[in-house]
């Protein structure tokens, strides 16, 4: 299945050439979770503070579906 991934802030450094918010299109086996996606991309799961799938915050064990859009963040804050 095809998944779109966007990485942000310090997580960009795990993906050569990636910049924040620029979508990456990936192929994953059916039934893959957010954790599997992180593993495939070489992003340490413990550095992911908030992960979104289609705009909703999800745990790393969330099962992805074809066409899902994911966005992952390290701890961020501001105001």
């Amino acid at each position: 299945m095809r998944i779109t991934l966007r990485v942000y802030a310090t997580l960009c450094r795990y993906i050569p050439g990636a910049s924040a918010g620029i979508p990456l299109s990936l192929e994953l086996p059916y039934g893959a979770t957010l954790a599997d996606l992180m593993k495939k991309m070489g992003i340490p799961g413990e550095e992911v503070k908030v992960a979104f799938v289609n705009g909703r915050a999800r745990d790393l064990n969330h099962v992805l579906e074809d066409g899902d859009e994911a966005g992952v963040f390290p701890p961020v804050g501001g105001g």
Partner: protein
Amino acid sequence: MWILRINMTDATYRLEEPSPAYKNLAGRAMTSTLVSDEVPPLCHPLGPHNKLVFSAGIVTGTAAPTSSRISVGAKSPLTGGIKESNAGSSWGPALARMRIKALVVEGLPKDKKMLGAFLTWDAAQDKPTLEFFDASDYAGRDLYAIYPEVYEKFGKGISVASFGMAAEYGYGNAGVVFNDMNKRPSRYSGRGGLGSVMASKGLKFIVLNPGGAPGVSMADKALFDEGRKKLLEALQTHDITKPKGALNSFGTAVLINILNEAGGLPTRNFSSGRFEGAASIAGEAIFEGVKERLGKEVYNHGCSPGCTIQCSNTWYKPDGTEHASCLEYESVWAMGANCGIDNLDKIATMVHLCNSYGLDTIETGATIGVAMEGGLLPFGDSGGAIDLIHEIGRGSSIGRTLGGGTEFAGKAYGVVRVPAVKGQGMPAYEPRAVKGMGITYATSTMGADHTSGYTIAPEILGVMGKQDPLSPEGKAALSRAFQATTAFIDSTGHCLFIAFAILDIASGYQGLIDECNGILGTKWTADDVYAYGAEIMKKERAFNEAAGIGKAADRLPEFMKTEPLPPHNQVFDISDSDLDSVHGEM
């Protein structure tokens, strides 16, 4: 400790012993109490009976980390209610070191002539002393031109409070400005038109030089030191607040992307929760852009002495010269996503112009968004938006209409979608996508104000647990708890950004309480923090009710209850009784 009163009717001042009832009050607690005690709620904000109050926090002026905030309070020309707006600057610590608990500007001059006040420490008399000076040469001019002249005139070691041309026109949108660490006129008590209150009094500057002043007195220095160390450790460990952490690297605009992902980044005057240009204006883009233009990585700086978080950035032109400081999340959003503008150079120009003219960036961007909705110019027209800021700054007839703020512009242009509460334009979080924040906007005594109850922490950022931002469940209680705790933090003089660390790290929270107990000699516990904050909210609320701003004003604009917001297609579905419970169950 003193209360310093400057009477502008006859250009005199006097020092008073504070009433014993004020012993533990500082920062927002002090400004809001003094305004409640002395300002008639029905007075005209720019008339003779309003008072402008400055107060530094409980720990401001000490070695406590990230504690250089100054609160400014008055009846607001924008909302008609009570207002407290705080800024980070060396000005707050300077006032605290001179042991001035509150500086109150009152009365109204007989003529339009502008004066300045220069405040120093008189060692022989062991008290502060004040001289007035003629400031008429500084009126009607760009703040970036006059600040260097003031530094030149008064020499090293000074801090400067002022206002810009926007305030001289009496706009609802005009801030009080303080210097940053680089003498820029860039740190604002921006919200609610407090600059216009200062201008109405004809007091163009308050210049402080605390040289020789004794500093803040402490009941128990050992306890204070223990507290500040605990807090410092929390700040230096937490991922958001530590050196080279999120705030220090990417600034507050690191929030642009996460709000956009969550569908809660208000776009084109609150008509969508997603902006297609978000990534190109976000904190990461600022960091990368500066790196490219200067050829090196630059981490952010502090806005004020003793800040260990250091979230303030500077944007540079392609030739490497300075363009604007600072590009905050709120400012970038207001001029950017909210106006459909995705170019950081244009946004930087707009932010710099707001600082030059003395405007609040949030109110300015929200107003331009409404003007775009009203057909005055198209969304995305950055050149047109820049021209409008000049119109506001120069006081043309169109500028005067827009200087009145978001709600005023909405009326002038017949706009229905007006994002404002109690007359104050909404900041950078969409209530339909982050419900707790909507409750804060609706019920804050300040009008739509994100800082007064920052439920974004658990709803979006995963700080202090995680809560579903789209769910209304339990959000009134959440907002109430945040509002009360925030009122306390606003009284300590700490920057609200310490909250990220202390809400997650219990010893840091205890450190904050220890610091205050060390200074005041109190025996406060966590329960007292809530009670202290709740007391402030009650006073503010009572002032507003007496000013005619009651329950009916604790509501969001109608369109948010009827127009579903993409991408989640949600409306604001918090019931009126839930909204009323925020103050009702306080």
